[in-house]
């Protein structure tokens, strides 16, 4: 029997499949219009909200609170839009079969896709740095609070992303993936809000209401945005991300059996 190239292939290079998918995904963001649209709309609306709705100048305070205040709402629409194609498109076009028969484990594919998208959102977030320059030029803001807010914003984007990626694996329609993700993200965002709490309390389920309130993305983000990088809040986001990615792997794997 002759030697095949597959025999020569470096069997120790287990991370290569992961890297391959990660780089392909990242490359995808740089060549597809959806991703650029995401970045442009994010930057434009972040700016517009800050100055108009947030009354950045009129407040006369040297901080970025009016800027970060709108991030949850921007992410609520934009992250599901960015993530809706992650699995739905692979399923629709049949490339899922190609990907899952390559020497890569499902969790590696899930995490590679997540990290590439998260990095891309992080890039867009970094591009808001003129905001930080402006506020530093105009006054003397607490840069520690700003840094914490940036970290909180990035973590929250990650949580939205993990939710959206997981829901994208349920369907081959990007539209359905988007709407599902939007609905679930909205629920988690407002879990502590009367809008969600009132019906639960009316039903007399105080414990469910309390449990759900502690899952509120908004509350945890606001806690970090106040400048307190509390372990609990960071752990909350990390756990949310891990939970949804794990669910994603399980659903992906379950689909092969069905």
């Amino acid at each position, binding site marked *: 029997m002759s030697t095949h190239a597959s025999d020569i292939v470096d069997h120790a290079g287990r991370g290569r499949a992961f890297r391959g998918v990660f780089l392909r995904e990242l490359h995808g963001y740089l060549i597809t219009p959806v991703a650029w649209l995401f970045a442009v709309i994010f930057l434009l609306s972040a700016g517009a909200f800050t100055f108009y709705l947030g009354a950045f100048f009129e407040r006369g305070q040297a901080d970025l609170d009016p800027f970060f205040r709108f991030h949850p709402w921007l992410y609520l629409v934009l992250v599901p839009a960015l993530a809706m194609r992650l699995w739905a498109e692979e399923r629709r076009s049949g490339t899922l079969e*190609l990907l899952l028969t*390559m020497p890569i484990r499902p969790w590696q594919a899930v995490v590679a896709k997540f990290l590439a998208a998260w990095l891309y959102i992080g890039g867009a977030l970094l591009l808001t740095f003129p905001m930080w320059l402006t506020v530093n030029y105009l006054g003397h803001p607490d840069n520690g609070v700003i840094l914490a807010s940036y970290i909180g914003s990035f973590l929250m984007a990650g949580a939205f992303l993990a939710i959206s990626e997981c829901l994208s694996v349920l369907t081959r329609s990007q539209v359905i993936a988007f709407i599902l993700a939007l609905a679930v993200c909205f629920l988690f965002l407002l879990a502590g809000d009367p809008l969600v709490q009132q019906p639960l309390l009316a039903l007399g389920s105080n414990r469910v209401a309390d449990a759900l309130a502690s899952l509120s993305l908004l509350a945890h983000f606001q806690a970090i945005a106040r400048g307190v990088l509390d372990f609990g809040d960071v752990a909350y986001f990390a756990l949310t991300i891990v939970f949804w990615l794990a669910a994603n792997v399980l659903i992906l794997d379950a689909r092969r059996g069905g």
Partner: protein
Amino acid sequence: MIQTENLGKRYGRFDAVAGLNLKVAPGQVLALLGPNGAGKTTSMRMIAGFLRPSSGRAVVCGHDVVRDPIAARRALGYLPEGAPSYGELAVAEFLNFAARVRGLTGITGARRMDEMVERLQLQPVLAQTIETLSKGFRRRVCLAQALLHDPPALILDEPTDGLDPNQQREVHALIRGMARDRTIIVSTHALDEVRAACNRVAIVAHGRLRVEGTPAELEKRSRYHHAVSFRAPASALARELLARQPEVETVEVDPVDGRVTVFPRDSGEIFSIVVKLLEEQRVRVEELQLERGRLEDVFRQVTDEAFEETAVAA
């Protein structure tokens, strides 16, 4: 080596594949034939590790596809049904991605890539986005992805679908060229592909393996096996006499081209009998042929039997 033992896939109460036993050794190119919905693609998906079997197991080059999935996939090149690929990528980018995921980097990777591009004639479209390519090019791009890591085992689901006759011949030559030390399973609807590229045939219908053997063995099962066909402008009397021969089962005339086919009883040898009779009757024969048997015929026979069987069972 690709082996399946009692491989089965069940959806609810419907058996898409049931008790499939296949053993394909290096040097063998197995053609998987069967009507649409027979379970060909499902079987291939299970061997490739995309679907998990409901029962039984599949082994690729000694690696169980469920228990040792990564090693099994490393040993396998797979062309899925419909030849999917990432449409937004250029051909070179897509092949680069496949090479990277397969751990083919550096000089080995570059050399393999060049080889595939040359053999599948992808040079002119390397920089083009895949979604702008014709169906034939897309299929070859996905084929290149399957062959890139020079796998010892290959599964190709309809490799020549959508290719023109020249490209088909090219792919057949490619498969024959690789066959020597590799294990290859090809699914197809084109029966001439079986003769052009395969040395074994398996026919599946309703999720079950019906017949397996070399193309010649299968042709023997055809009623055309050892039949004699000829063309003659005036042969009415000769046909009548032929039909009365004890060794002859029946004589048929093709209504379109007038070709006469003499079928033997129990696959007996009737060539000399036919020739002798035609000479005695001084029939002017334009053309005479000993038939080997027709795969089309066996295919129809086997799938019809399977259909009746399930109809009875229901």
